[in-house]
């Protein structure tokens, strides 16, 4: 039941992707504790591809497959969060939430803490044989058959997280959930919102959207000297949302940190990875920001209001990852007079030797690379220039490892067989996963909440 008098919920975010800084949670938790009142700490660590890589890691080692930096993320703050009843919610379970839950217990034991109540949210993994029919219906039998599937996961909603918190979880570990759910779940549990309270769910969803990329709302991915100056970027603080019983939020950041929160940082993140602003689709709600406004309400504090919600989609998005072969890359640099001409010549040599062995992308780093194209249109039409410090980059994707590896050898051979003065060769070869998005009926992909007891073998202190 909705509780209109419930106090404001503070949600702090301490990670926006796998590989984010691990020294930021301390300031977020210190700020949550200083403000007092109900609070929650979230970690978002699953980009589109991260989970597929985690599945591969688990395939190689059944005890792996969760966020590799889990210990470093949690160790500095776990004791304080447990002591002060600040639940931790993270999708750092990745491909192995139960493994991550055991690791949380082991960490608590190492820190001399009483065993916490750790819940996992399962049900996102569609890789098992029982889900074959589901994927077949979503993709078609022929298409499915043609894919060398590495893993498949559905984006679950916030309900599993909310249920775990209502049942007293102190740490909630998930795999794939839609990123904003890490915020919506705690808000649902705290305020007692119904699953069809569309406006409130939509508001909390957009609060979660602002939080989910960590520093991207506090000055990260934003600074542009002379145009967008950000103070203290080296110690950019991570965001904290104050969410009220209506779902409206004020975005701020951890005390004593760098970065900034203003109307412009908030607008940029509000529109990040958004398509139709009238229909931001999540498993919980369809959010509509066409009437939304942002307003600075104090130093580093910005209010978001006017978000509306519409009924959630009947289907859940799922991503099917499949093996597509191998990516090979190689680079070599040229500098001084004629550098660009020599780099171009090196590219011509590669092309001539590569022949029709498959797509070959060439970039002239220092002339045009990020704004070029895989089709080679830019390379073919860019007029010759006189850049003096140029790095040729070549890339190919091949079904077979050996075929891809040939490119790395061709680039390396440019040392002695290519143009004058070529140096600094670096090559890389890695397996690739492609992804296919599809939609599955939500009724067939229910979330399951499970409480995980300390593993006796991990040496708990119960």
């Amino acid at each position, binding site marked *: 039941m909705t509780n209109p008098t419930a106090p404001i919920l503070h949600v702090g975010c301490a990670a926006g992707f796998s590989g984010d800084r691990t020294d930021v949670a301390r300031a977020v938790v210190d700020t949550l504790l200083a403000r007092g009142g109900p609070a929650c700490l979230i970690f978002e660590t699953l980009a589109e591809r991260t989970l597929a890589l985690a599945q591969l890691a688990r395939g190689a080692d059944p005890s792996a497959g969760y966020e590799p930096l889990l210990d470093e993320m949690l160790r500095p703050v776990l004791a304080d969060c447990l002591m002060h009843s600040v639940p931790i919610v993270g999708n750092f379970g990745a491909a192995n939430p139960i493994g991550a839950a055991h690791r949380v217990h082991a960490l608590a034991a190492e820190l001399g803490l009483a065993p916490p109540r750790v819940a996992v949210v399962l049900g996102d993994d569609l890789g098992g044989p029982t889900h074959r029919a589901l994927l077949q219906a979503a993709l078609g039998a022929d298409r499915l058959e043609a894919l060398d599937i590495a893993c498949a996961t559905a984006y679950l909603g916030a309900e599993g997280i909310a249920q775990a918190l209502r049942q007293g979880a102190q740490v909630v570990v998930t795999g794939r959930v839609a990123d904003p759910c890490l915020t919506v779940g705690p808000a649902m549990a705290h305020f007692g919102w119904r699953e069809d309270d569309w406006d409130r769910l939509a508001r909390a969803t957009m609060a979660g959207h602002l939080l989910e990329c960590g520093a991207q709302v506090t000055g990260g991915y934003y600074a542009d000297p002379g145009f967008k100056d950000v103070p203290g970027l080296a110690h950019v603080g991570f965001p904290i949302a104050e969410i009220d019983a209506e779902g409206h939020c004020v975005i701020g950041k951890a005390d004593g940190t760098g970065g900034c929160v203003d109307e412009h940082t908030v607008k940029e993140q509000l529109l990040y990875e958004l398509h139709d602003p009238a229909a931001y689709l999540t498993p919980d709600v369809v959010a509509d920001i066409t009437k939304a*406004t942002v307003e600075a309400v104090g130093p580093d504090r910005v209010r978001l209001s006017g978000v509306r919600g519409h009924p959630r989609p009947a289907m859940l998005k799922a991503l099917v990852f499949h093996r597509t072969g191998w990516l090979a890359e190689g680079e070599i640099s040229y500098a001084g007079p004629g550098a660009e001409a020599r780099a171009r010549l090196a590219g011509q040599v590669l092309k001539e030797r590569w022949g029709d062995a498959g797509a070959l992308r060439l*970039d002239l780093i220092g002339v045009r690379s990020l704004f070029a194209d895989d089709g080679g249109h830019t390379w073919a039409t860019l007029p010759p220039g006189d850049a003096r410090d140029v790095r040729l980059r070549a890339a190919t994707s091949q079904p077979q490892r050996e075929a891809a590896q040939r490119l790395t050898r061709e680039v390396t051979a440019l040392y002695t067989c290519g143009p004058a003065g070529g140096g600094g060769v670096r090559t890389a070869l890695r397996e690739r996963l492609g992804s296919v998005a599809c939609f599955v009926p939500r009724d067939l992909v229910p979330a399951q909440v499970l409480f995980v007891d300390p593993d006796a073998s991990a040496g708990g202190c119960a």
Partner: protein
Amino acid sequence: MSSASMSPVSLPIGTRPAGPDSAHVPLRCLAHGRTGDKGNRANISLIAWHPDLYPLLVEQVTPEMVAEVYCARRPSHVERYLLPRLQAMNFVLDDVLDGGVNDALNLDSHGKALAFALLDLRVWVPRQLGHRLRNAPSNALWSSAPPKA
């Protein structure tokens, strides 16, 4: 401009706003933005530095202009969404990421840098809005002379 570059694109002279006192300035002085990616689709936001500048964006930064900026990537469709309350626009470009993060051969497979190609677009700004620009060009740029071809 028909070449394949993501270099500065100019509006046709005929679209120049009425009045002698206007300057042709980088979009970056009027607005900021960022790229997001999902699959092989990019979105690029464009947010006015000041509400007074927003109508200039709506008038001049059209989906056709944006398609031209990214023509090397062969977008199959460019959709523009207007958010007047945020003084912002959101462009959604289909099939513009060389296949997307899992399939592209490019260095920046997310397309993180792409917004800055748009911010290099040149747009007309009337002199009376010059004080709203960020890093406004010097007064010498405000003139009634037609732009160089």
